[in-house]
């Protein structure tokens, strides 16, 4: 059965390293283009790029521990392991909390992106219509399943990278290296505090563990995850640095949408002076994939918590829920500075503490059972 073993692949729902890599990169690195940047710059000014690294360093042990746990239980996802370790009741509790966090986070973030789009590019389009259309596109993607999300992410990945490269290259013209100083922005302690507070930037690395069984094998998962995290940190750092070097200390903290401002700033020659729509195109490609994955994850969590095997059927109601929740905040300020801050404040402890805790319990159980 050499043919059966080596050439005929199992195709159902398993994705390869490239697809997995690009999904994670898209999910996390977009945070260098949205309201997260605004908040980070407000807190730490031109040291924001250090916070990216700092947060990553703080959260890295948890991710590694989680990876070890996942490796032990090859066929199970994060939630099934939770159930194995802590029993049905506790797993339900934690699952439900995670679900709520992810649901609210998805609506807050998607609303924030919709607001960003309207403010910067479509000032005359009604919010509800645009938000609805946006979620509709994402829903369509999520409906097509995990394999399709990965495929599409990988298909657009090279072009998005090229576009980003062009942006960074064009920004370099307006960048002055000296603007990096004062190195620690608002202060060393502030940077350290922010690094701790912003670990939720990497929350997706945990949520994605729910899809562990859908990745080809453990090696693919590990390499994909850490490879993409490294790449993401580098990319976000470069973008944050670019904003700092272009907009300068202090004033960078006063810009609402540094990414959109940066794309407005760049020009090609003297004739083509406004190419933000070009970058907008690629940015839209990415965020549609990003929120399609979010919706998929939310409905997957929902399916787990309420024991629905065919969780993809819940996608439509979940999307409607996200839309309704997303319409609640009256404006961007409400949305980001109240809702998102609360989510970040509380959820970071889950991501920091859950994996070591889980590991410990499983270890104790293993020792007890001999």
């Amino acid at each position, binding site marked *: 059965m050499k*043919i059966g073993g080596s*050439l*005929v*692949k199992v*195709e159902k729902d398993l*994705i*390869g390293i*490239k*697809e997995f890599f690009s999904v994670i990169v898209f999910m996390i690195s977009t945070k260098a283009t949205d309201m997260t940047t605004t908040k980070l710059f407000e807190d730490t000014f031109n040291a924001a790029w250090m916070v990216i690294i700092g947060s990553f360093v703080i959260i890295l042990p948890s991710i590694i521990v989680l990876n070890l746990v996942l490796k032990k239980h090859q066929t199970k996802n994060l939630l099934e392991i939770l159930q194995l370790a802590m029993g049905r009741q506790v797993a339900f509790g934690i699952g439900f909390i995670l679900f709520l966090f992810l649901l609210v986070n998805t609506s807050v973030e998607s609303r924030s992106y919709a607001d960003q*789009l309207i403010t910067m*590019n*479509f000032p005359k*389009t009604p919010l509800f219509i*645009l938000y609805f*259309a*946006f979620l*509709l*596109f994402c829903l*369509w*993607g999520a409906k*097509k*399943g995990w*394999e*399709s*999300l*990965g*495929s*599409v992410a*990988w*298909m*657009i990945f090279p072009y998005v990278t090229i576009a980003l490269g062009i942006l960074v290259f064009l920004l370099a013209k307006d960048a002055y290296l000296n603007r990096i100083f004062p190195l620690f922005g608002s202060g060393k302690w502030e940077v350290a505090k922010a690094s701790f507070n912003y670990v939720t930037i990497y929350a997706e690395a945990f949520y994605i563990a729910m899809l562990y069984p859908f990745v080809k094998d453990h090696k693919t998962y590990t390499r994909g995850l850490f490879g993409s995290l490294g790449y993401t940190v580098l990319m976000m750092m470069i973008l944050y640095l670019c904003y700092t070097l272009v907009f300068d200390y202090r004033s960078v903290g006063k810009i609402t949408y540094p990414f959109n401002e940066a794309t407005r700033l760049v020009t090609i020659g003297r*004739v*083509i*002076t*406004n*190419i*933000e*729509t*070009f970058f*907008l*195109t690629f940015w*839209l*490609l990415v965020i*549609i*994939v990003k929120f*399609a994955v979010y919706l998929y994850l939310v409905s997957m969590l929902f399916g787990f918590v309420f024991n629905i095997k065919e969780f993809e059927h819940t996608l439509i109601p979940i999307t409607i829920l996200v839309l309704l929740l997303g319409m609640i905040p009256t404006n961007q300020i409400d949305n980001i500075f109240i809702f998102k801050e609360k989510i970040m404040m509380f959820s970071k402890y889950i991501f920091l503490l859950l994996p070591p805790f889980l590991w410990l319990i499983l270890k104790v159980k293993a020792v007890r059972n001999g």
Partner: protein
Amino acid sequence: MRRPLFKKIKTNQLEISEELLQSDESVKNDYISGNLLLDIPKIKELYSYPKNIDFKVREFTIHMMGRKAVLFFIPSMTETKLIDEEIIKPLILAAKEIIDIPSAISISSIKEEKLISAAVSELNTGATLLLVDGLNVIYVLNTSSSAGRSVEKPQNETTLLGPKESFVERADQNISLIRKKIRSEDFTVEKMIIGGRSKNEVYIIYNKELAGEKVLAEVKSRIGAVQKDAVQNLGLLIQHIEDRSTSLFPTILQTERPDRAASFIEDGHVIVVMNNSPFALVTPATFWSFYHSADDHYLRFIYGNFTRLLRMTAMFITLFTPSIYIAITNYHIEMLPADLLLAIAGAREMVPFPAILELLMMEMAFELIREAGIRVPTPIGPTIGIVGALILGQAAVEANVVSPIVVIVVALTGLSSFAISDVNLNYAIRIARFGFLLSASLFGIFGMVGIFMIGLFYLSVVKTFGVPYLAPLTPKYKSSKDTLFRRVLKNEKFRPAFVKTKDLTKEPVQNE
């Protein structure tokens, strides 16, 4: 050979009165008796002889055997000269005693049948039946020849350097056109019969050492499952066996070039050929096979890739130019340099319609001209194009119905669409561009990206005979990476793994 799946066709019996059905069946299932007085009326009745003029019976005596004999044939499908010269003449004018018939006739292919139904089905394809009194066997002599044209140049898939022959309406000629490019004993042609009434023959061609078993089995079972009493040609068959009948994108490639079909066979694909169709089906066909053209590989590496680049650009222009025009002029005006913006605004000053209406009108007009150009009789075809494009456009601009910039956009789109060589993909892209146009008028770039992503998500789940549509790009398969661009020919070492070919590498065995 009939397969189990094929028998499904017989499940729904029609409401024919019992007697009729029985008598018809009984004659067909009879064995030949050897007595001409009994056998001749049976066959004559089957073809309702004197009434049906396209059926001939020729009775004569073979003196050297001292027996009566009779020939049945359908004149419209047989080579009568062959019957005269090679069958009747030798039998009547034989100088020596005839011991067995095959040695007395100079026809290349002779088959013996005992069952009348088997013989009759051969007769229907143009064979001549020979019955000799006292011998309980029917000789089936191959004399078939039907009207048809000879091999001509390809009409749709023209190339600069490739071979200049294309498939015709005869399956045996088509098979020979492919076969002469693959001189190997592994080249296999299987025949299946579909259409309970019209008995259409379908030929499945593959290389038995290369074709993937899964795909082959899938092709056979899908063809076998066709439930129709007549499937005249491939254009109709394709709609019975394709994966998604209502999909915008084609999943089976139709090619009229034998060389292309041959190269697909060598990659492990399965080809389907049928009488009455001047092209062949290629299964499975991924998105890339529609995008490629035969010339890509006949031209040198750089030239070939240059044409690919042009074709890709043409695809993008066709899809996006009108919608980008709408999106930019309605939503993202800042993109345009001030001078250009003023020029566009100046040109649109006198036009009373919104830009989207203007563009839709012109696009529709262009599509109409194009459709009319295909349907009109050939001599006045070019006239339609000139009258339509030149005079209509010019007059529309002068009457201030449309602005000149819209004419430029539409003309560019229309011209670029001609560079997409595959007919099916061409239609898909031309239709899809209206989706982009409408979305751009509603949401600008945002709407376009949304529709684009919807399309991409959709394409990523489409499968063609079990093979992902966008393979080998994603999901990844081992292949020669012949997708958007091709590699240097020496580096194209692999057959595409997605067809589940049995031999992945294209290593030469040994050149003599």
